[in-house]
């Protein structure tokens, strides 16, 4: 080490999809990209994950939907989105004008059939390189099953989606379970090509003056730096449990966090809430990665993935 004067290779691969770097704005914090295109050229990103999209248009939850938290925030948006048909018709052509890289299509649903149907509709959308199946939103009340907390239900969604698409299927997992590796294994056994974790942690704030919950939805999802160590631990555990590529997500807010998440086992990293505080953050992180690789002595950033596990085994 110490002789690394050539430009490090930042590219990573997710289930056969090549990304020029591991930095991916996370679903729900980046819309369909348009707002951030006013801040920087989106083409510097490895990919971006669009807003969770359901079959029908959704208004989401009543306001207030946002609350401050120590080192983070709560949100209870409730999957506000224009619906899959409008997204394919209107957003996809718009995305193509500002971003030419791979898009990760985050797909929501309320039934197994809805997930499959939404994915089938995306089959011909060439730019959607990866399907990220959101079985983990804490803010919608389907009145039915919670797919992300039941291994059998998670496996059912995985298998149903797997049957209708040739695109890589990444299941996005919730941390609000006793053992995330159990859900991860169920998804892997049902044919998932990869996993994305974690979604937000279920939380709540109460207003001292009104003596009412701050959020109209009562509860919301905690994100931001507060959840980073939880996400690292879960990525670590899942990396040991299944042989699937992992997109690490949760509380990442600087280049060093990207590297830490990769050392724990992530092949690429999503950045969420931190974009809301600093809309330039993903650009700053991408620009900081070459120097960081130099400091860490890696020629290929992908060499970081899971490297903490190997070192531990060598002791």
């Amino acid at each position, binding site marked *: 080490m110490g002789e690394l004067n050539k430009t490090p290779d930042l590219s990573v691969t997710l289930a056969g999809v090549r990304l020029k770097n591991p930095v991916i704005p996370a679903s*729900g*914090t*980046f*819309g369909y990209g*348009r*707002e*951030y295109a*006013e*801040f920087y050229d989106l083409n510097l990103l490895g990919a971006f994950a669009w*807003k969770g999209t359901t079959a029908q248009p959704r*208004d*989401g939850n009543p*306001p*207030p*939907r*946002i*609350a*401050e*938290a120590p*080192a*983070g*925030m709560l*949100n209870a*948006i409730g999957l*506000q989105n224009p619906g899959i048909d409008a997204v394919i018709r209107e957003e996809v052509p718009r995305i193509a004008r500002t971003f030419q890289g791979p898009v990760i299509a985050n797909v929501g649903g309320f039934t197994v059939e809805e997930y499959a149907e939404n994915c089938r509709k995306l089959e011909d959308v060439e730019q959607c390189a990866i399907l990220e199946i959101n079985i983990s939103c804490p803010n919608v009340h389907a009145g039915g099953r919670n797919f992300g907390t039941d291994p059998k239900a998670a496996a059912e969604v995985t298998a149903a989606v797997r049957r209708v698409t040739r695109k890589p299927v990444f299941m996005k997992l919730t941390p609000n379970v006793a053992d995330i590796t159990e859900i991860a294994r169920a998804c892997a056994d049902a044919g998932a090509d990869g996993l994305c974790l974690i979604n937000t942690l279920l939380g709540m704030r109460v207003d001292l003056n009104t003596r009412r919950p701050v959020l109209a939805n009562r509860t919301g999802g905690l994100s*931001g*730096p507060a959840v980073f160590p939880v996400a690292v631990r879960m990525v670590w555990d899942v990396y040991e449990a299944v042989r699937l590529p992992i997109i690490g997500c949760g509380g990442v807010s600087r280049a060093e966090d990207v590297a830490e998440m990769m050392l724990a086992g992530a092949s690429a990293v999503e950045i969420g*809430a931190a*974009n*809301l*505080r*600093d*809309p*330039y953050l993903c650009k700053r992180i991408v620009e900081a990665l070459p120097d960081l690789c130099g400091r860490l002595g890696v020629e290929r950033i992908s060499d970081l993935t899971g490297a903490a596990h190997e070192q531990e085994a060598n002791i």
Partner: protein
Amino acid sequence: MKASAFTLQRVRHLNADTVELTLSGDTSDIRAPGQFVNIALPGFFLRRPVSVCDWSDGTLTLLLRLAGAGTRQLAATPPGTALDVLSGLGNGFTPPGVPPERVILAGGGIGIAPLYGLAKALSRQGIRPVAALGFRDRAGLFYVDEFRAVCDTVLIATQDGSSGVRGQITDLLQQNVSRTYVYCCGPLPMLRAVYALPHLRGGQYSFEARMGCGFGACMGCSMPFRDGWRRICKDGPVFTREEIIWEN
């Protein structure tokens, strides 16, 4: 909109819970009164959205109600401190499209802040507007002299009658029924009460909301309007009377 480094130049206490902040920095992204800036505070995750009260080349004036720990910290920041500001956010007010004698500005509490910038912009166009300002009581008054300098008439209402008319902003508007076009900013109940006045024909209403990002990405501040759920931060904060769907 863009991120700019501003420097806090001055904090002037206007009353017990209102301060005027003067910042220096690049204001070139501010295009219209009624827009807002979003300020990052050390130790707080979410930025604090604040209406633009006034601006010129290199100088930005904000009025801040000390509502919680974040705003109190901001008000206690020593002059000379650099602030991380997203500037030029939201749509802002547009010209009324009706004769000046039909127009009235109606602000409640800290909601008067963006109306000052509007009054100044109108006065530069040769229109000295009438402003109706509502406060809790005499001790809660602020910026009245500043409004007087750019307005034809400034009407005051206080809840206890300790200054101006005893009553609400709606009482002031009802005493001026020939003025049927309102620029309105204040707490939601005030916006609703003004909107419900039968003599009003048109207007622009500035909304406040808890925001996640302030630039349209997170859907945290969406509310229902005539053509669906809209983002207060990006599609607003100013909405026309025609866009609002409150029932009268």
